[in-house]
């Protein structure tokens, strides 16, 4: 055994020789070739050699960059491998060695295998070294690992065994077989053999199983499962089958048994149908759910009808699973069985059947699903049936079939059917739903309007407005208003909406209807609508008057300014004044996207009419979004008023920050004042 000093000398000589070799290669290179190694490559390698945490990683990145250029460049590849091996052989830091191994793992080491082999037997470097060896394209790599093994401690041995397994090299089987007697690593050896998975590896494991301690059976079976998978990939179905049969018994842990069962299904000639059927009729409850989960993918004729026949022999929870599995087959053979279970006394089965029909049913099933919908007695059931009907494929055909159930349904039924039509986005149902919107039953009417808000279009607007006029219940009227508003929002031709609403308002006689239509005036907008809103505000009827002021205060554009400012400054009541102010501040804040002196003068107008602190705070809040120097000055004035100082300061800050690029002096001065 050589001394440490001798080893060090050898390393130094090897290092120097490598540097000389690299240099020589560079000199001898064809002068026409683009040089890839930088001139300071030696220095880079030396720096990388010393790397440890805290140091610059520049040399490491430079080496990585060169590694990435190794593709289709064997010369560079060799040079890089040589350089990296130098790092491994020298007194480099552990971190440097780790780095070198990671780079070798990318290019696939060949010439450095022996060095890597040596390092694989040392615990601290074993992981890095094996990282590189596993990726070696050389057939010698496995032998290198086996050779390193005797010198290794336990951790390094485990590392080596794992690496051998990951190389999946059958030549290692005799070596691995020898290690099975070592109790400390037998589990790892078994896994390695399993990964190799050849017939010989399988036989080795079986042989071991015959005489091993009971505590090893689980890892043995694990490794046999790996072998079975390999056998399947290599089309050795009988080999795989015999492995699974060996494992499949009640004494193994449940998940191993499950794995063996899944494997046997794969190897069965009939695609597992017989085995699954036998499982469903057995007393082995642990595998039934697994067995049922495989039914959707079994190939073959009459599968659905075959398993449908087993339905009544199963527990309810199992029936529910089987229903779902049959539905997932999408197979119409199963439908008859599932249809009958929609009325099951057991909720689990019933819900599964309803859900299944939603997935594979057709127009024939609309009637029974709607019946289930109208009869649902609890929220969970209702949700399930709604989902099922919503899912029924068939587009308009289904929608029309559902609509046909609407007429004769109870009030509760109608509400539910309408909701489902909404979920299906059944535009074809709009006329039918409109007819229900004027129902005397408030719940039905409300449901209808809510759905119409989504499904209607501008062509339905006249009927929708007429329905709003007809309904009497206040709640339904409110929903009708929302629906009409939603449609007006979607409509391009606002003028037509304005004409319609105004025309209906002129003819309306009862107060509630007039109020609803007045509420819709700001949604339409327009000159005529505004006149009608003003006219309402002038009414002697206080209810109409209030509707009028509300409509004016919700007006969408600044054309209402003069009307509102008059109400604000000459209010008939405090509540009207507040409404007007809210409307005015809203309008101004929407105008903030076009800040100018005129806008600020309007804010000033509002301040002039302010009666209390709340008014001023509201105005300041809106004005804080007005990015104009005049607004800044106006806000600055307000910091002298103690009750609103905080809000004024906040407004100054916001405006100044927003305008400081365009008006730096003004902004700076203002910010200085509020410091």
């Amino acid at each position: 055994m050589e001394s440490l000093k001798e080893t060090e000398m050898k390393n130094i000589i090897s290092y120097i020789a490598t540097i000389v070799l690299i240099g020589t290669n560079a000199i001898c290179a064809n002068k026409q070739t683009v040089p890839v190694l930088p001139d300071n490559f030696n220095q880079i390698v030396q720096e990388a050699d010393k790397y440890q945490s805290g140091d610059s990683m520049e040399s490491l990145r430079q080496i990585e960059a060169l590694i990435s250029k190794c593709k289709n460049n064997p010369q560079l590849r060799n040079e890089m491998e040589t350089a990296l091996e130098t790092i491994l052989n020298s007194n480099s830091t552990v971190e440097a060695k780790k780095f070198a191994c990671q780079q070798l793992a990318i290019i696939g080491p060949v010439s450095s295998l022996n060095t890597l082999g040596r390092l694989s037997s040392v615990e601290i470097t074993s992981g890095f070294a094996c990282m590189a060896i596993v990726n070696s394209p050389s057939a010698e790599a496995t032998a290198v690992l086996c050779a390193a093994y005797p010198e290794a401690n336990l951790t390094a041995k485990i590392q080596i065994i794992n690496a051998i397994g990951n190389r999946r090299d059958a030549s290692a089987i005799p070596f691995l077989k020898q290690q099975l007697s070592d109790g400390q690593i037998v589990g790892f050896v078994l896994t390695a053999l399993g990964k190799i998975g050849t017939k010989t590896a399988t036989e080795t494991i079986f042989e071991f199983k015959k005489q091993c301690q009971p505590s090893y059976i689980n890892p043995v079976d694990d490794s046999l499962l790996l072998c079975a998978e390999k056998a399947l990939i290599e089309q050795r179905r009988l080999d795989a089958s015999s492995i699974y049969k060996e494992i499949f018994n009640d004494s193994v842990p449940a998940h191993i048994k499950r794995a063996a069962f899944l494997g046997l299904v794969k190897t069965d000639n009939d695609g597992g149908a017989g085995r699954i059927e036998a499982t469903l009729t057995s007393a082995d409850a642990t595998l039934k759910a697994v067995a049922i989960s495989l039914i959707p993918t079994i190939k073959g004729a009459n599968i659905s009808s075959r398993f449908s026949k087993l339905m009544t022999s199963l527990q309810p929870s199992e029936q529910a699973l089987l229903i779902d599995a049959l539905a997932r087959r999408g197979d119409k053979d199963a439908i008859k069985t599932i249809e009958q279970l929609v009325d099951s006394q057991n909720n689990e089965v019933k819900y599964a059947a309803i859900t299944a029909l939603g997935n594979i049913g057709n127009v024939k099933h609309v009637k029974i699903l709607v019946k289930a919908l109208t009869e649902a007695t609890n929220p969970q059931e209702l949700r399930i049936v709604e989902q099922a009907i919503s899912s029924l494929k068939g587009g308009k055909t289904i929608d029309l079939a559902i609509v046909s159930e609407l007429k004769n349904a109870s009030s509760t039924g109608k509400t539910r059917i309408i909701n489902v039509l909404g979920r299906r986005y059944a535009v074809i149902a709009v006329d039918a739903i409109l007819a229900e919107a004027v129902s005397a039953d408030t719940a039905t009417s409300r449901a209808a309007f809510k759905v119409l808000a989504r499904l209607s279009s501008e062509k339905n607007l006249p009927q929708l407005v007429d329905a709003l006029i007809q309904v009497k219940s206040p709640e339904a009227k409110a929903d009708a208003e929302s629906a009409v508003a939603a449609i007006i929002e979607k409509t391009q031709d606002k003028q037509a909406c304005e004409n319609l609403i105004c025309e209906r308002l002129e003819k309306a006689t009862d107060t509630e209807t007039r109020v609803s239509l007045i509420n819709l005036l700001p949604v339409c907008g327009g000159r005529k609508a505004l006149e009608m809103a003003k006219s309402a505000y002038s009414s002697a009827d206080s209810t109409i008057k209030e509707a009028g002021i509300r409509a004016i205060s919700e007006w969408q554009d600044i054309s209402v300014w003069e009307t509102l400012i008059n109400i604000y400054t000459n209010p008939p009541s405090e509540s009207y004044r507040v409404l007007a102010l809210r409307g005015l501040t809203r309008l101004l804040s929407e105008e903030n996207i076009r800040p100018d002196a005129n806008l600020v003068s309007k804010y000033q107008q509002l301040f002039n009419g302010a009666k209390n602190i709340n008014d001023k705070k509201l105005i300041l809040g809106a004005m804080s979004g007005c990015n104009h120097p005049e607004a800044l000055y106006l806000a600055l004035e307000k910091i002298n008023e103690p009750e609103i100082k905080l809000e004024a300061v906040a407004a100054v800050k916001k405006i100044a920050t927003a305008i400081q690029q365009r008006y730096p002096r003004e902004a700076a001065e203002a910010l200085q004042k509020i410091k």
Partner: protein
Amino acid sequence: MKPQKKLSRRQFISRVSVAPLFPLVVRASTLGLNGAVAPSERITFGAIGIGNRARDILQNFLAFKELQLVALSDCRADRLKSGKEMIDNYYGNTDSKTYPDFRDLLAQKEIDAVFIATGNRWHALASIYAARAGKDIYCEKPVTLYIKEGRTLVETCKRYGTIYQAGTQRRSTASYKFAMEMVRQGKIGKLHTVEMQVWTGAAIRHEKSAPIPAGWNYDMWLGQTPWLPFVPGRVHNWPYFFDTGDGMMTDMGCHYTDQMQWVLGTDDTGPVEFECSGVFPDPKKYMSDTMITGVGKCKYANGVTGIMYQRRGFVDRYIKYIGDEGWIQVDDETDQVKAYPESILSLRSATGVSWANASDHIKNLLDCIKNRKQTLCNPEVAHRVNTICLALTISARLGRKLKWDPVKEQFDDEDANRMLYREPRAPWKV
């Protein structure tokens, strides 16, 4: 026919034995009174990793009466202690058990499932160990550290019939579902581009190693990643280091690639081309090695292009579907949906949860644990989603465009193929 005994839910999902867990004084909830679910019908969970994210989402878990959190594991003693306090406080007892080593938690037969909210380096590995131990799984995203690990995760879960839900919960949220439906219904015409955005990544300054804090099992913290000395800045900012996180394009980007895959209906496949470039931290000043800003593009075989931007701030993240007749966008911070034409928005119903509430996503898992169906974000889905992000960062690291075969799951580039895999540090194995 012989009458079959009605089985409790626990037997139904194949537990082998039940160990007594509950105090001698039987609470009303134990008897299933007051609307509670009886213990024998509850799904018992263990939590692995009790950091900040775990605490957020555990609130959603605990709200389910059919679930009981009975054990916790963390490699930090301080987190284990405070995690136990939180759970015991909730249940009003001191029954929760703690395990510094998660393998001991997995060995408990009475635990049906686990919730994994460790650092990214542990997501797939802990899940694989959990699947091998027969547990069902909810695991935070991104689900893997490297692409081949994802495929191993898929195979392991398939092998054992494990029910697994990835924490890409936006598939269960109203705004994203609506956007998906609108795109699929053709409301924006033919989809041609999906834009996604995550925020600018951090650059972590150089720092020397330091002593490991008391109560930390640093070796366990590292897990499968290469050994490195304890450096506080590197440990606390692990998402920004290639060894432990792969950066924000993966960490957060996977939420949006998940949506893209879902909308396109490509859950079992993926793009065929990747190209990514970005700005990496200055190595003279910073030790972190993942992108700060960048642009990644991926192309699908059907011509759709995905573009992932890494730029701007945390609140600016979004996904936008652009078609030849309009677009629809979900702003992730506000959960607001914008669209052109705006009329699309009128089709949206008012109900549904936002992504911050993972309840529907957890419910999906709990239902699937009972019925053994695949979850919304099952391993194949989650792996494919993550593959897109990881492929983009591989492209950025190598500085070149890469072609990808989504069937073979290979690049047309040997060096890139070697980056699909990272050998785990012993004793961990995938």
